[in-house]
């Protein structure tokens, strides 16, 4: 049997002839991304030596601009680290900064066919760029930063064959909610996305799906490389790279066909996204206090544009807060230039600076006791966005925008006709 994409990338990075499920492999890491949490006192190991500083990227994102003295202290430690080791790819507050996974895509730091690690769980986001990328822990991101290598347990691979085309008001987030709702977790498995539908799926849409791989609990979520991706990467970097394609006889533990044109908008109920998706008729009418669009999953220019289209000529309901957090300064600037931000603000949205913000419950939209939020972000765990008694529903940016207008969970399609 042949190898799937992730296995081929791991084999090349580990100088191995072959990699298959069950192996424990040690591989070269091409890119290591550090972010502000790594520099907090309880996490920072006071690095003294780095073998490959050119592989390291530092991006401040989780708590930006610093909302507390502790966060500011972490930023200070990060700047000293960058200075000491001459890290060239540093994204300080305001400077081409953003949520690290959005910046990794913006700058094409994740090159097709390579290995990337970061100690944020949504690092699988870079799988949209044909990367083997995953969140690792604090100790192993420093191990990779210092020594340029890491270990992986290789899991079996589930292949998702995407066919057809998404309908109006249906997004990559709904594809994720369909997969998570139908199949549940993918713990210890790799996920591979391919199929004819890729030709109509932008890299931004793929990034939403790859990022949400963390919520499937998969090891890696990797997309096939095609002309859409090659154009995207080459327009952002002159770096050389070699994508990996799956072998025709790759070993998959399952191949699942998803017909995109048969999907409809979905919403996950609070506390989990696994086997917890509902259609809009099942949840419409649930009152909300806050609506949020942002994060490494849904802070792209396309997400902001879609929300603005839904909100065109409409107003956010009086008792609802709509908070929109662009994924990066680059997204923010483009959205400002083309008028998307103005449209959001005119409709009553609060647009924040790029940061992880409300998604992680750290700042910029923390929920109070008993509050209800619908979010287009990464997670709806109990208590994640604020008080443990708050409830978080999850949907696409279109569904969140429509719900903000209605004041209750609502179907976006009537607003997009």
């Amino acid at each position, binding site marked *: 049997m042949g190898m799937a994409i992730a296995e081929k990338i791991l084999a090349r990075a580990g100088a191995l002839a072959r990699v298959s499920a069950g192996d*424990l492999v040690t591989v070269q890491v091409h890119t290591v991304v550090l972010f502000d*949490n790594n520099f*907090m006192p*309880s*996490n920072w*190991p*006071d*690095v*003294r*030596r*780095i073998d490959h500083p050119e592989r390291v990227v530092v991006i401040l994102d989780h708590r930006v601009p610093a909302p*507390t003295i*502790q966060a500011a202290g972490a930023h200070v430690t990060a700047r000293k680290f960058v200075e000491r080791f001459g890290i060239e790819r540093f994204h300080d507050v305001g400077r081409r900064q953003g949520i690290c996974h959005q910046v990794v895509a913006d700058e094409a730091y994740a090159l097709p066919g390579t290995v990337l690690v970061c*100690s*944020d*769980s949504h690092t699988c986001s870079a799988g949209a760029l044909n990367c083997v990328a*995953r*969140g*690792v*822990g*604090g*100790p*192993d991101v*420093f*191990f990779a930063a*210092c*020594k340029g290598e890491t*270990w992986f*347990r290789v*899991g079996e691979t589930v292949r998702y064959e995407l066919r057809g085309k998404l309908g109006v008001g249906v997004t990559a987030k709904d594809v994720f909610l369909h997969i998570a709702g139908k199949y549940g*977790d993918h*713990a*210890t498995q790799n996920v591979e996305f391919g199929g004819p539908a890729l030709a109509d799926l932008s890299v931004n849409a793929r990034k939403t799906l790859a990022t949400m791989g*963390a*919520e499937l*609990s*998969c*090891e890696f979520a990797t997309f096939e490389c095609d002309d859409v991706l090659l154009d995207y990467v080459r327009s952002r970097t002159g770096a050389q790279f070699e994508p990996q394609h799956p072998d025709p006889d790759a070993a998959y533990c399952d191949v699942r066909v998803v017909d995109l044109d048969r999907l409809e908008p979905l919403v996950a109920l609070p506390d*989990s996204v*696994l086997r917890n998706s509902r259609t809009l008729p099942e949840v419409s009418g649930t009152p909300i206090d806050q609506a949020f669009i942002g994060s490494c999953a849904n802070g792209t220019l396309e997400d902001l544009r879609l929300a603005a289209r839904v909100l065109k000529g409409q107003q956010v309901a009086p008792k609802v807060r709509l908070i929109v957090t662009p994924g990066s300064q680059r997204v923010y600037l483009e959205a400002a230039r083309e008028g998307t931000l103005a449209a959001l603000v005119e409709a009553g949205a609060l647009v924040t600076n790029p940061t992880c913000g409300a998604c*992680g*419950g*750290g700042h910029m939209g923390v929920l109070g006791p008993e509050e209800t939020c619908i979010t287009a972000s990464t*997670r709806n*765990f*109990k*208590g*994640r966005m604020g008080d*443990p008694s708050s409830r978080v529903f999850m949907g696409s940016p279109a569904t969140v925008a429509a719900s903000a207008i209605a004041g209750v969970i609502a179907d976006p399609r009537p607003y997009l006709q």
Partner: protein
Amino acid sequence: MRFSARIWKAGDNVNTDLILPNRAFYLTPQEQAKFVFSANRPGWSDLVVKGDILVGGRNFGMGSSRPAARSLRNLGLACLVAESINGLFFRNCVNFAFPAMECPGVADAFEEGDVAEVSFENAAMVNRRTGVRLVGRAMPAELRAVVAAGGLFPLLEQQGYIASRASA
């Protein structure tokens, strides 16, 4: 690595926000340990006695990369045995030196308060009350060596990559 102790049970898809909530981020690692399951089982962290064993369901530790495994270790738990363990959480268990093993059938074979014997060398587990024996998924020897060394930070410290640090 062998352990014999009382077990506590947790369910399926236990997430890292429950083990280490955002509001504990700025605290010391020792203080963070008191917040384990504070949202879903308030007061539990005070009941744990050093050496107790945690038994989990499917996909234990799903969610973020935060050092949640370190909190379980600092709470005094000896090890984790679960139906399956989230890949990222498993890495953190190895790298923070908290022994963790996947063992299909464990959730049904134990009731809270049972006493378990766990051997990581043999990837085996026994329920002392019922006598039921289970075989788990062995942790590769290379990874057991990392756990035995105290995790990755001591290794990096020995090799001069990071400064000497108090155990955290």
